């Protein structure tokens, strides 16, 4: 009973925070809201018995990726002018078409998940089980993910280096 209430609360927070993130003019504000949303989703993970996923969500997603975003935005130094520009770009009249498309998409997704039956019992899937799965059947995927991260590393280093050199 309690889980369900906590779940609804967390879900609401996540949704509201996301909406706010999408509509802010200041990039840092939007990012903070986004971090809140991610933390709410982590709470949902805890509630359904996936602590490893929840920890990862907090540590990596909110803690690393979003921080990376924050660093880059601060490096770009947009300032008050950036905020004004954002507000100017986000006029109400441009919301009509995208809102319609999103609505249609949402309706379709609802239709697809409408007949799903089942409940989540809340039994924990421990980190140990996840680790066994990772080094068992999914070891190839781990290797490929590692290569992907290496590629991302090299790429971002290369793309960012020129910028720094020029700035100096």
């Amino acid at each position, binding site marked *: 009973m309690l889980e369900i209430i906590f779940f609804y609360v967390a879900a609401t927070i996540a949704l509201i925070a996301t909406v706010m993130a999408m509509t802010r003019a200041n990039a840092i504000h939007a990012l903070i809201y986004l971090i809140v949303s991610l933390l709410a989703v982590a709470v949902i993970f805890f509630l359904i018995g996936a602590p490893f996923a929840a920890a990862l969500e907090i540590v990596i997603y909110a803690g690393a990726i979003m921080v990376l975003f924050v660093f880059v935005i601060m490096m770009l130094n947009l300032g008050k002018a950036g905020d004004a520009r954002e507000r100017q770009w986000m006029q109400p009249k441009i919301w009509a078409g995208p809102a319609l*498309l999103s609505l249609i998409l949402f309706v*379709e997704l609802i239709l697809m998940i409408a*007949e799903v039956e089942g409940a989540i019992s809340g039994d924990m899937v421990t980190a140990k089980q996840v680790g066994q799965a990772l080094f068992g059947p999914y070891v190839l995927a781990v290797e490929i993910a590692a290569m992907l991260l290496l590629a991302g590393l090299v790429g971002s280093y290369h793309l960012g280096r020129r910028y720094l050199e020029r700035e100096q």
Partner: protein
Amino acid sequence: MKEMIWLIPLLPMLSSLALMLGSGSFSRLIIGVLGVGSVGAAALLTLLTGLDFLAQPEPYTVSLWTWMQVANFSPGISFYFDGLTLVMMSVITGVGFLIHLFSTEFMEQDASYARYFAYLNLFVAAMLILVMADNLLLLYLGWEGVGVCSYLLVGFWYQNSANGQAARKAFVVTRIGDTAMALGLFLLFTSLGTLDIQTMLGVANSKWQVGDLMPLIACLLLLGGAVGKSAQLPLHTWLPDAMAGPTPVSALIHAATMVTAGVYLIARTHGLFELAPTAMMVVAVVGLATSLMAAFTALMQSDIKRILAYSTISQIGYMFLALGVGAWTAGIFHLMTHAFFKALLFLGSGAIIHCLHHEHNIFKMGGLRRKMPVTFWSFMIGSAALAALPMTAGFFSKDQILLQAYQLPEYGVWLWLGGLVGALLTAIYSFRLVFVVFYGKANTQPDKDVGWRMAVPLSLLCLLSLIGGYFIIPVQAVFPLSTDGHPAHWVEYVSISVPVIGVIVAYLIFYSKRLDVSRLVQSTVGSRLGDFWRIGWGVDYLYDRLFVRPYYGLSALMKSEPVDRFYGWVVSINQCFNYWLSQSQNGRMRRYLVSIIFGLIVLLMLALQLTPEVF
């Protein structure tokens, strides 16, 4: 000598090739010597071969090589020599030599001297191949060759586009006949299995009965070809226009040799024609009709060469008439004598044209008797032979034709009567020409008379026109013997006197002006009839309206490429879609994002429809 008869067409062909290749570097003298000499050598060789043959009259074949070998069709390049071949070859090389000699003076001032002789020699070579051919395919080769040379020579002065048009007309009209002939060759090959003439006649006799359908069709198709080449109804319209070429060309091609190719063809394949009496009747009727039509037309012409052209058409009609009634020997005999006097007449007109600064209208000439005596006597003798006045060459040949026509059962009398009317008209128009041009007041003065190179051929031809009637052509072995019976004597007397009456009528109208026909000519009926006759009985007009104009209209329609327009539409529809769709590639990322979401929506919609509910 027998084995070397292939030299006879070879010499003119080599000379033609040499003249074409080296036309820039030869002097006029060399060109003349090559051009005239090659035909002269051919004439000499023909003479030797002829003497050989007359000593031992055995027909023989000289086979050079096999032309092609496909399945069981293997025609060869082989020449067949018999009496008919000898007659034709003598005419071609003999008269040809004289005309070549004449041309050296006539074309003296022309810039394309070498080209002229090259074409003329090529023509002689092709014509010789035609008459010497052993099989119909080689004959067809010669047939086409003379057609091409006719085109090249009629359009010799191509700078004037009207000459080119006349040449094209000649080529296209004879082509129609050639197509019919080709169909005839196909039919003969598929039915008889060979195109070798002598073999073919043997097989035909064993395979077909008299009056069968197949020989009738084959002969009518061959007749189609002959009609085209010999300018008979309905394919005669090209010959008057072909007078646009140089006059010696008209003499050689359109009087003595090419137009007689049709007559030769029918005579050579007489065995086939005897199997189809209906076809022979058609030949005779076509010949007679053409003869009369052309004679009426010649009466109303005022261009000297057109009169002679229509006269040629008319005389060949006589030859067809002869062939049609089975008088093969008479037809060939008339071919030979006609070659003599028609060449004479044409060369005479060439002399007149040459000396009167290219004047063609006879009513602008007159009184040339004193200034140009050689030409005057040439014309006199030539016209006398044409009109078949007694003791000239034309008299013997035409008389033979009319007598044999009379002897044909059932229709002979009508054919004979038609021939008589034609003879009367022939006499009238030919002496009209003589009296108008040579007597009376001189409207144009000639600035010179003919040189020896023109006078000698004219004189020789005069001689031949007078004594040619006494030649006996060695074709007894070729043709079946005709009926030997003699018609009643009154028939002969009438035939002899009609041309004389015609000459007297012409004298009265055009010379002494005693008989006044001007009222008759200027009356409404008279003038209408006269105009109708002058334009060749409207055949040209008919063809123009019926064939030429619709064809040009169709060409103009096709020129705007209507079929391509359909493909143009396909292309432009493609381009339209390309234009519309390329609008979506505008490089604006947010549009792309929206389209991704849109695509996702569509995919999900498809997924909803297609997959069964697994949830």
